[in-house]
């Protein structure tokens, strides 16, 4: 039954709020009335892909998410994994692709700030971060500007906040020219007895707003028509937020101190869409309601409307639920660290989000309508691979001319930005702070840092981010498997046992059948590999509509993976060590040139069928490699990836400052 009264909103307003007509109708059915403008803004953000995964939810259902070492799986701010002896590791990856295209420095910086907050909101001290970056070719000045801005932003924020940036990957390809990818991963070590959850509990408990003040930043660029904002001229409304790493460092210390008092019932970072997201998710996860008064929220600007308060994306802010009577204890801690802290509301029995402004109720909606009842689109998946894939699979290697000068080929490959050394970038990241970094950027296939228990037991944590998006573009199922297999292989090459995954699924528009097919097939491959290799998915992020002028980027499901080194001395790096050492190839030689970097760099072709992953073989090769490292049979190990065997040998020689001689028999 749709209400007889006409909708107070024009088609443009709905479009600006990225809500389709029938999504609007569903809102009206859920509320049994028309939403007001503030409520419409809240639904617009909460029903975006970023918050509710409406297009990807059906595909994520079959990821394996449980395992003996998994303490917290998908659904919380970050996944938590048991590393033994009381060591519990929180980790997650998140994307800031669109803001980084608009303002590279601040887009990347606030991406790092946001993912760090997801970690310490669980009660964990951030101990490391990694990043997966993708740009267009560097011969284009615009791409160079975005690349140097993003690296400077990660460096500026990460170094100041005091978390070592220990690893990552950078790719360059035309597909990312108009739409760079900036995925930031963070890792933390639990410092509180109990893992802090985000579900609100205890009717009457105070709701605390802590951290920085609220301003109008982040509104201009979001999906809001200008009509909804106060008369502030466009010139004054920036599309991007500016991060303050100094304040975030204070927020880390204050929050961890606050959690250890036991006075905090629940906590959540104010991520995308700030107050809207935190109030509705905390209420719905706890099965209760939250009432919040905007007049009490510390504002940085005068005359802000309720709409602007609710949708502002100002940085470095958190929402807490405290035990009634212990709020002053928490407020004192935040004030000592020079931060805002006010009781802005309370937990209520009815499962509603009720927002007050200037003495009147401006929003009152059931919390679950915002979080659980978002539409889910189970789209049809193509039964046949799209034309571009079939054409690529028919590519015949025989048509390829044999190179006359192999040295020339190697030098050209080593000189291509995707393969070449990334020192220009990681030299700007502080990878040593906190004094636990063992395998540094460039030294091994994965980063390794030391974890220490209070009782002095030390253990290694290895971490990596990986994805070859050309493989996924040309065969999403095998490409998805390859991304997981390569991440696990990189961990095994430093001697670590792969434990768990966080993923960042970067795709084009799901409304395009071939893109949705890429998503479905990639997820099928990822879940198969994660199940087989025993690395469950503990959460992650989905970023869709990554396109320029309607042209989607290569499907890029970035896999972040962490692994355990029981014995810190038994770790391995990729550089050759001693003259006279023998070089072994684990696994089969040969394979295909399909979708290879060789084809792209030397022949400027992105075609052919990528190599198929044999997971049983993969498991054997990796466990043999790990065994060899623990038995001290192996003194260097390197995964064969872009550029194949030739480039892998060259990289081990260069890093080891030695030579290598190999006979290749036909």
């Amino acid at each position: 039954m749709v209400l007889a009264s006409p909708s107070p909103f024009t088609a443009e307003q709905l479009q600006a709020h990225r809500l389709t007509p029938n999504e609007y109708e569903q809102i009206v059915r859920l509320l049994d009335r028309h939403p007001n403008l503030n409520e419409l803004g809240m639904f617009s953000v909460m029903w975006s892909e970023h918050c509710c995964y409406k297009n990807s939810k059906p595909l994520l259902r079959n990821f394996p998410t449980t395992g003996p070492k998994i303490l917290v799986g998908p659904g919380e701010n970050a996944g938590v994994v048991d590393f033994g002896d009381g060591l519990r590791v929180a980790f997650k990856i998140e994307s800031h692709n669109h803001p980084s295209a608009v303002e590279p420095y601040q887009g990347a910086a606030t991406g790092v700030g946001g993912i760090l907050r997801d970690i310490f909101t669980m009660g964990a001290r951030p101990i490391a971060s990694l990043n997966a970056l993708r740009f267009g070719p560097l011969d284009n000045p615009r791409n160079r500007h975005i690349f140097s801005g993003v690296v400077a932003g990660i460096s500026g924020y990460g170094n100041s906040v005091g978390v070592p940036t220990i690893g990552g990957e950078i790719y360059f390809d035309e597909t990312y020219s108009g739409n760079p990818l900036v995925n930031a991963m963070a890792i933390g070590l639990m410092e509180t007895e109990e893992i802090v959850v985000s579900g609100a509990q205890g009717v009457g408990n105070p709701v605390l707003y802590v951290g920085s003040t609220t301003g109008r930043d982040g509104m201009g660029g979001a999906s809001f028509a200008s009509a909804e904002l106060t008369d502030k001229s466009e010139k004054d409304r920036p599309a991007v937020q500016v991060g303050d790493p100094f304040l975030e460092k204070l927020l880390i210390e204050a929050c961890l101190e606050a959690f250890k008092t036991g006075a905090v019932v629940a906590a959540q970072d104010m991520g995308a869409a700030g107050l809207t997201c935190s109030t509705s998710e905390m209420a719905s996860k706890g099965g209760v309601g939250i009432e919040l008064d905007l007049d009490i929220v510390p504002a940085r600007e005068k005359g802000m409307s309720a709409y602007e308060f609710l949708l502002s994306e100002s940085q470095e802010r958190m929402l807490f639920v405290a035990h009634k009577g212990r709020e002053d204890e928490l407020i004192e801690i935040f004030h000592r660290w020079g931060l805002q802290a006010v009781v802005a509301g309370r937990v209520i029995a009815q499962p509603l989000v009720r927002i007050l402004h200037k003495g009147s109720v401006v929003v009152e909606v059931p919390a679950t309508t915002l979080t659980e009842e978002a539409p889910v689109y189970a789209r049809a998946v193509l039964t046949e691979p799209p034309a571009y894939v079939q054409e690529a699979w028919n590519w015949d290697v025989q048509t390829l001319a044999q190179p006359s000068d192999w040295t020339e080929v190697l030098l050209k490959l080593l000189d291509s930005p995707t393969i070449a050394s990334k020192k220009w970038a990681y030299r700007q990241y502080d990878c040593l702070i906190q004094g636990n970094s063992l395998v540094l950027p460039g030294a091994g296939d994965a980063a390794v840092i030391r974890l220490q228990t209070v009782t002095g037991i030390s253990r290694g944590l290895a971490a990596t981010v990986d994805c070859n998006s050309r493989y996924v573009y040309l065969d999403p199922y095998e490409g998805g498997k390859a991304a997981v297999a390569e991440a696990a292989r990189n961990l095994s090459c430093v001697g670590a046992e792969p434990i768990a995954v966080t993923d960042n699924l970067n795709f084009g528009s799901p409304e395009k059948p071939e893109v949705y097919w890429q998503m479905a097939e990639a997820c099928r491959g990822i879940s198969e590999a994660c199940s087989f290799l025993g690395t469950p998915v503990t959460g992650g992020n989905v970023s869709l509509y990554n396109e320029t002028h309607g042209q989607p980027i290569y499907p890029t499901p970035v896999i972040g993976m962490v692994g355990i080194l029981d014995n810190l001395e038994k770790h391995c790096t990729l550089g050759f060590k001693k003259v006279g050492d023998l070089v072994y190839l684990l696994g089969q030689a040969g394979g295909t040139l399909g979708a290879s970097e060789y084809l792209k760099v030397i022949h400027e072709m992105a075609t052919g069928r990528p190599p198929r992953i044999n997971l049983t073989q993969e498991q054997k090769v990796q466990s043999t490699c790990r065994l060899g490292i623990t038995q001290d049979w192996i003194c260097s190990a390197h995964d064969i990836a872009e550029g194949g065997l030739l480039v892998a040998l060259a990289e081990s020689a260069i890093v080891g400052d030695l030579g290598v001689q190999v006979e290749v028999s036909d």
Partner: protein
Amino acid sequence: MKIGIVVFPGTNRERDVAQVTEGLLGCPTQFLWHQQTDLSDSDVVILPGGFSYGDYLRCGAVARFSPIMQAVRQHAERGGYVLGICNGFQVLTEAGLLPGALVRNRDLKFICDWVHLRLENTRSLWTRGYHAGQVIYVPVAHGEGCYYADPDTIQRLEDNQQVVVRYSDAQGECPDAANINGSLNHIAGICNQRGNVVGLMPHPENACDPALGNSDGLKFFEGMVTEALAFT
């Protein structure tokens, strides 16, 4: 020998130093919050690395006016030992406890890399364990580490042997290529005339733990332990 490590809002390497002074060397170590004014309980005061007050305006510009800096000045005037590492060195120059200033790196980028340092003055508490001309391999991590002072000050530093460490190559030479951030005379660290206040940009504390592969920096802190024995 009791160690006091100063913590400003934004300091972020205080634990790295404590891991060495207390963790590796067993010296009693405590953190001193920037609003404290009593340093009587500390024989050695260390200003560690970080971004005090976010390094806004200038690195260390705001930290210099914290209440504790008055106490640090008095501690230094009494002959007490003061060490400023990276941001700590910047705060000491802003406070006038050491001459000159640290400006933006020559190539405008933050640098985190390992460098060779040549020991120049080995009479200070911190460099007593090394011999003059010795080359050590330690990391740097800074964006504003280019040491600058007017020509007279530079001349005075050289004449009084107040240059403690210089950026060099593996052989101890000082070609321009080894000057990582454009510092005048390759200066990486200096001391005051009396020698009790030392400031340097590199991070010896991140090159102390053999378990992490390099301990060239450990002797830097061991001087305090041998000095302590001399006290008792």
